[in-house]
């Protein structure tokens, strides 16, 4: 569903062979033009999320406005408990805000019924989690194939693509391993491959490196950057990891449920000292 891929035929363009998507596009030219025209993949307006725990109410998000440009790599940073994961879940359509609107490709996700929401999660968004969240009993191959199965792809086609994606993330020789037979870094690579299974426009990664050591974390960060550049997928990460700063196009600083400020990468170098003050 990422029409911009067409301008990068030489890239790690795994959906070139996907006739399904071709069909969708033919049937649906309005979406393509609209999608190309929209500069923002994600627009969030006035997001509020309140958690009630008995007497206590927590304002996890307190009116957040947030736009994500198509094809960029943006990191959401902020102290623990500032609302990064909450924002992440709202953008991903995994949870609903109490107030405010989220548009993905100019579609208000609050207006989607469960079927449409499932379609969105399946086709438009790839998720990567801190704790990998692979299906433990399934092999790497089956894990990567699952979203394609949900998308109704043919078994053989899905399998070829899953193998291809696993090779791309450097796990060509681990295709039939189960998650528990792999290291954390390898599991996160499987999760990356799985996130790309249906050629999403957005990959959402919540603390993808938090459970990994520094070196493995860096490898995952580089992999995400590579995916971002080669596939032109928008990457949104929520993270504590300062290594992420080096690869992000923009950094959104969240504090106490508010968007503190958004910086371009160029500006970060100047204010580098601040990084340590988070």
């Amino acid at each position: 569903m990422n029409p911009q891929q067409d301008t990068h035929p030489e890239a790690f363009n795994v959906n070139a062979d996907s006739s399904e998507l071709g069909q969708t596009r033919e049937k649906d030219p309005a979406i393509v033009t609209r999608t190309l025209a929209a500069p923002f993949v994600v627009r969030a307006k006035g997001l509020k999320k309140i958690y009630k725990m008995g007497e206590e109410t927590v304002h996890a998000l307190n009116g957040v406005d947030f736009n994500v440009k198509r094809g960029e790599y943006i990191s959401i940073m902020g102290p623990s408990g500032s609302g990064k994961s909450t924002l992440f879940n709202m953008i991903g359509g995994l949870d609903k805000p109490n107030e405010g609107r989220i548009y993905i490709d100019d579609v208000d996700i609050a207006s989607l019924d469960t079927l449409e929401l499932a379609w969105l999660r399946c086709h438009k968004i790839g998720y990567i989690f801190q704790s990998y969240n692979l299906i433990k009993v399934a092999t790497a191959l089956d894990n990567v194939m699952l979203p394609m199965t949900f998308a109704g792809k043919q078994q053989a086609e899905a399998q070829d693509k899953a193998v291809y994606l696993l090779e791309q993330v450097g796990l060509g020789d681990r295709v039939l391993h189960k998650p528990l037979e792999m290291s954390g870094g390898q599991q996160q690579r499987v999760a990356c491959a799985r996130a790309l299974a249906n050629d999403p426009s957005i990959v959402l990664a919540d603390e993808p490196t938090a459970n990994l050591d520094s070196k493995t974390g860096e490898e995952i960060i580089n992999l995400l950057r590579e995916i971002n550049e080669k596939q032109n997928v928008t990457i949104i990460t929520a993270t504590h990891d300062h290594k992420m700063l080096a690869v992000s196009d923009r950094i959104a600083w969240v504090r106490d449920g508010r968007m503190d400020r958004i910086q371009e990468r160029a500006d970060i170098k100047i204010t580098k000292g601040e990084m340590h003050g988070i």
Partner: protein
Amino acid sequence: MNHDPQHRANEEEIQPLSLHKIVRIAVRGIKVRIWRSVLVVSGIVLAMAFLSYILCSDAFARNVLEYGSRDLIRHLTAEGIINLETIADQRVQTYWVAGLALLISLAGIMNAMLMSVTERFREIGTMKCLGALTGFIMKLFLIESLFAGVLGTTLGLIIGFGLAYVEGYFTYGGEVTALFPPLHLLLSILFCFITGILLTLLGAVYPARLAAKMSPVMALRSEM
């Protein structure tokens, strides 16, 4: 998007997950979790063996009373095995025990199923993130629990019936086998079979539905 007819075409892509495919996924799930599956099934076997033993041995007793020859009943009374004066009290007692057995199997089976589903909330949340529909998750758990239910109930019934039969044989003698039509026995077996499968499905479907309906975030958060 609701009002956009162009999106209807897209949604169709997510619907077709044939039953055949879901069965395959379910069978794979049972196989890889084989020890968990064995544990769940043994829970059902135990509960159903208990229930069917109580009900079948009661059915044997009733068969003897209703269809047994006068000679047999006279003989059994003389031996003190049946006492026609206290038989009404015994009947009430049996109902109590059967009720208790039913409660125990209810608790046992529901517990086994609840555990096996709640420990998979995370998996359900993950599948929802990947685009699974509630219907898919429901079918998956329905099929998995149907396998467990049919297998566990059948095994439990065989064990329970076998025990009741052996007991009946030693209590009433070989004539027990000749007592046909075994109406009470058939009813008991049918009752056990339906109860066992129903409880299994209920125990799986209720939590699975809960998990499938909750937001993926909630399902993912549950650490079990």
